[in-house]
């Protein structure tokens, strides 16, 4: 009786889950397999060509000047974006956690950019970071000029490589710092006041309380932030497109994949870039996923 019932329960659940299993199976894993197949083919042009090419496309990309620039841009962007968003998020979280008056207002202001499309962000920042000079001085540069801060006037994202891409991190930090702030604030609020009090009683200064007690306890939040921001920055695409169109100096693998596939119809190369992107994200995310799952089942 129990066995039959157990079996029946099991089957209904599995049957109701199966549409999603099939969809994810095809659209995620099946399509990754298909991309892999295209990446080892010679498909260039509108007509599919599945002649086996081995790893030629992957090897060719490594010596492709544009792909090299893309990788350098990704590294520069990731560094500035992750450090900026983690640093600013942590600072804002610590300041808000002090129970300042108007806490809710500040929190909402720092979080609202998350509700906005990266395309909107890119369009707005394209004018804020406008590099025009003389008659066409505008945006932040104009603001600096008005306040006499001429030293800050900058070419922004049109600066010489590799610094142009570093400025792209500015709108990205603007958009994502609220997220890291929320993560850290959640972590800070979970730290019992007694712990901080005890440290103060033992003679620790305010700075030491942060350094020795609070920051170490934020490590899980920091890990989440690094994984989420890191994988987002490997995938960065919309923001750069909206900010600069297809400016090659700000090119990244996600944009290269898009243009080489859909403009130049070099499907084999496009698929190879897609697989490189997938690998870089997987290295970051898979251990995190497995770790989260194990931590959960341990409970």
């Amino acid at each position, binding site marked *: 009786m129990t066995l039959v019932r157990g079996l029946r329960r099991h089957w209904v659940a599995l049957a109701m889950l199966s549409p999603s299993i099939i969809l994810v199976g095809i659209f995620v894993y099946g*399509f990754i397999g298909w991309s892999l197949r295209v990446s080892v083919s010679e498909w260039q042009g509108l007509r599919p060509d599945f002649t086996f090419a081995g790893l030629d496309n992957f090897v060719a990309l490594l010596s492709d000047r544009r792909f090299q620039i893309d990788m350098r841009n990704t590294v520069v962007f990731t560094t500035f974006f992750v450090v900026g968003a983690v640093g600013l998020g942590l600072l804002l979280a610590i300041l808000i956690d002090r*129970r300042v008056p108007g806490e809710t207002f500040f*929190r909402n202001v720092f979080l609202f950019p998350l509700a906005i499309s990266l395309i909107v962000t890119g369009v707005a920042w394209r004018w804020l970071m406008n590099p025009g000079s003389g008659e066409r001085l505008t945006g932040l540069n104009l603001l600096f000029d008005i306040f006499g801060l001429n030293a800050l006037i900058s070419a922004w994202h049109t600066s010489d490589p590799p610094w142009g891409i570093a400025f792209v991190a500015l709108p990205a930090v603007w958009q994502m710092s609220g997220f890291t702030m929320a993560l850290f604030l959640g972590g800070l*609020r979970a730290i019992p006041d007694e712990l901080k009090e005890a440290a103060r009683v033992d003679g620790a200064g305010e700075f030491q309380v942060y350094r020795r007690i609070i920051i170490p306890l934020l490590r899980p939040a920091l890990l*989440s932030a690094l994984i989420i921001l890191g994988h987002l920055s490997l995938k960065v695409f919309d923001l750069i*497109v909206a900010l600069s169109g297809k400016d090659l100096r700000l090119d990244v693998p996600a944009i290269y994949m898009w243009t080489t596939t859909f403009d130049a119809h070099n499907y084999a190369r496009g698929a190879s870039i897609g697989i490189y992107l997938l690998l870089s994200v997987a290295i970051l995310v898979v251990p995190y996923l497995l770790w989260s799952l194990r931590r959960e089942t341990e409970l």
Partner: protein
Amino acid sequence: MTVPLPPAVARRRFLPLRLPTARRRGRWTLGNMVALVILSAFTVFFLLPVALMLNTGLKPFADVSLARMWELPSGIYLDNFQAALAALGPNLGNSIALAIPAAAISSMLGSMNGYILSKWRFRGSDAIFTAFLFGMFIPYQSILIPLVSFINLVLPGGGLPGLILAHVVYGIPVTTLIFRNYYATLPNEVVESARIDGAGFFGIFRHIALPLSIPGFAVVLIWQFTNIWNEFLFAIVLTRPGSWPVTVALNNLAGSQIVEWNVQMAGALLAALPTLLVYIILGRFFLRGLMAGALKG
């Protein structure tokens, strides 16, 4: 909730991000004054792009000039918004016709999946869940070529149905995750006793899980609506100009040499408005979705 739970437990309880509960009222100490000054400076930084969009959008055409970007408008004029609406109106309509059904369908799938993966777990169900979750992180460039071929095959024409299908499928991981964590807060004893009373898989879902799911649906619907509204990559490769959602049309507007920047600013604000309003009115639910994406730290 005075005793802080370890993060993993908090996650299982689906604690709604305990940000909103300030335990004490704001204090006016010297340290806090310094903090206020710094926070205010950052408030300016965060509001600057919106200020620019509003300030430019509300000027009459005659007042618009790059050199006077930061001067306030001489009054409230809607010229720019009218021009932007003329350009983006149909695309705003497309975005609505896209985001609402896609969000609704993916939430329904997510609630069923979440119910099964939390209350009807079987051997291998955790592995399936993890396999789903991976789909949330993949760079979509790695599935883009097959996706475009597949959609062109089954739903040709570059219309909205293909894009809706893509959003529904790639929404499964996050909607399942949020609902699974949500239903995990439902005590197993409730499910057990309903089962003893003779309720089955569907009975428990229909009479116990679903009626308790309204906040869960609010979180997932808002999250999906926002993300689908804001999405760009799928939209640009899967739709033709007539079905372009607003993000694609706005990007096109911004890249155009003919459309003035003031109209672009008004257009950007129009494109942002629906999700901004949702955030302002229902921000609490939006935050929970946001934190679910971090798998709860």
